């Protein structure tokens, strides 16, 4: 079965899970997306939507004032925050905070959601760093790269929540055979968390760039470098490996996979670029963890 066939098969299975309460994104996200897509967004109407959710308002103000935005003055109002971060970035932040809220961090017996989110945030941070270091011709938005990195493993959460027995088997399999979780899932089920995440992204009607980043982050070589989203796929692929090498959090298996050389070639990244990015990631890793607090 081809990648997309597997994704559609899983998407149909997810519709069955829907009866078991498959999490949905908050209406706030879709309202914001609709206004932006239809070019009807204004600071006022976006503020109104967000203010209906006090915890989201607080979160956005906290994020805007965090070190990752590097602002010298404290931002106290939502409208000012929206002006600074921009409409698209706002939508990305709402998506990021909503997904974390759906699956709050906790320490499980076999799988820690705390460590999972630490890993995911590190991948998001690494993706943002890579995006900022890329030549402008790739047109990768750094905040979009952060969100893509943050949600790249969302398929694992669906596995953990709705198919816990299979997920447990995959975790044991990868430890026994020293393989990545994706390879273990492939061996056991014929599909992996990339397909499941891709299916969920379709179900949630996320922007297509996220479908690609989630669906191919382990196997970018399955996509043509001419694909419109190849650069984002490559960024998340490299960011995942960078975060793992820095031992930041855990996505379920500890093994550091090989870099697919096509990603380095396509993004024109050198050894020196990587050295720079490794150090930058260490400097920023703890700063973005504010996303996990008060989720």
């Amino acid at each position, binding site marked *: 079965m081809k990648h997309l066939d597997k994704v559609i098969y899983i998407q149909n299975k997810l519709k069955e899970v829907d009866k078991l309460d498959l999490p949905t994104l908050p209406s706030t996200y879709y309202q914001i997306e609709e206004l932006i897509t239809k070019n009807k967004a204004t600071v006022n109407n976006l503020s109104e939507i967000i203010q209906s959710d006090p915890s989201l308002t607080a979160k956005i103000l906290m994020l805007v004032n965090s070190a990752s935005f590097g602002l010298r003055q404290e931002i106290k109002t939502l409208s000012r925050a929206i002006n600074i971060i921009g409409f698209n970035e706002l939508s990305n932040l709402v998506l990021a905070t909503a997904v974390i809220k759906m699956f709050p961090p906790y320490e499980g017996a076999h799988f820690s959601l705390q460590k999972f989110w630490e890993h995911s945030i590190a991948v998001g941070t690494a993706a943002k760093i890579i995006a900022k270091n890329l030549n402008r011709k790739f047109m990768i938005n750094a905040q979009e790269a952060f969100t893509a990195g943050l949600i790249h493993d969302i398929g694992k959460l669906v596995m953990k929540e709705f198919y816990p027995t299979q997920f447990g088997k995959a975790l044991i399999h990868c430890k026994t055979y020293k393989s990545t979780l994706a390879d273990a899932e492939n061996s056991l089920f014929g599909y992996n968390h990339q397909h499941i995440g891709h299916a969920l992204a379709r179900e949630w009607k996320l922007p297509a760039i996220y479908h690609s980043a989630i669906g191919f982050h382990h196997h970018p070589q399955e996509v043509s470098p001419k694909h419109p989203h190849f650069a984002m796929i490559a960024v998340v692929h490299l960011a995942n490996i960078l975060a793992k090498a820095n*031992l930041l959090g855990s996505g379920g298996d500890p093994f*550091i996979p090989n870099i697919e050389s096509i990603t380095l070639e396509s993004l024109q990244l050198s050894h020196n670029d990587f*050295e720079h990015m490794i150090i930058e990631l260490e400097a920023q890793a703890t700063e973005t963890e504010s996303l996990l607090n008060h989720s």
Partner: protein
Amino acid sequence: MKIIKISEMQDGMIVVRPCVSSSDIELIPSGTEIVKRFHHEVLARWGIDTLEVEDCIDYEKEFLKLSDEQQKKIQLKLQLLYVNANENNPIMSLLKSKTHNVLVKQALSDSRGSSK
């Protein structure tokens, strides 16, 4: 506002940034004279007046100071983490060296914790 030099070094490079909470960083070669010269350069660019330098960690030296058992543990862990990795790829070697440093840092922190 101060400059903080982060202790991490890669191939003789050090990192400086204008304040603890900023993500704006610069990479410069290590060495006191260069740091001093850089100080003047960043003064103009960042409008800062203090250079605060943290002690640098030489991870290779620190690794050798660890007990045989701790060294062995780190080597085994590193081997396990990179079990599927292509060692001939220079970037994978770079990443492995980074992971080694993180493991040494963790071991040092554990040693300090247990000696309290």
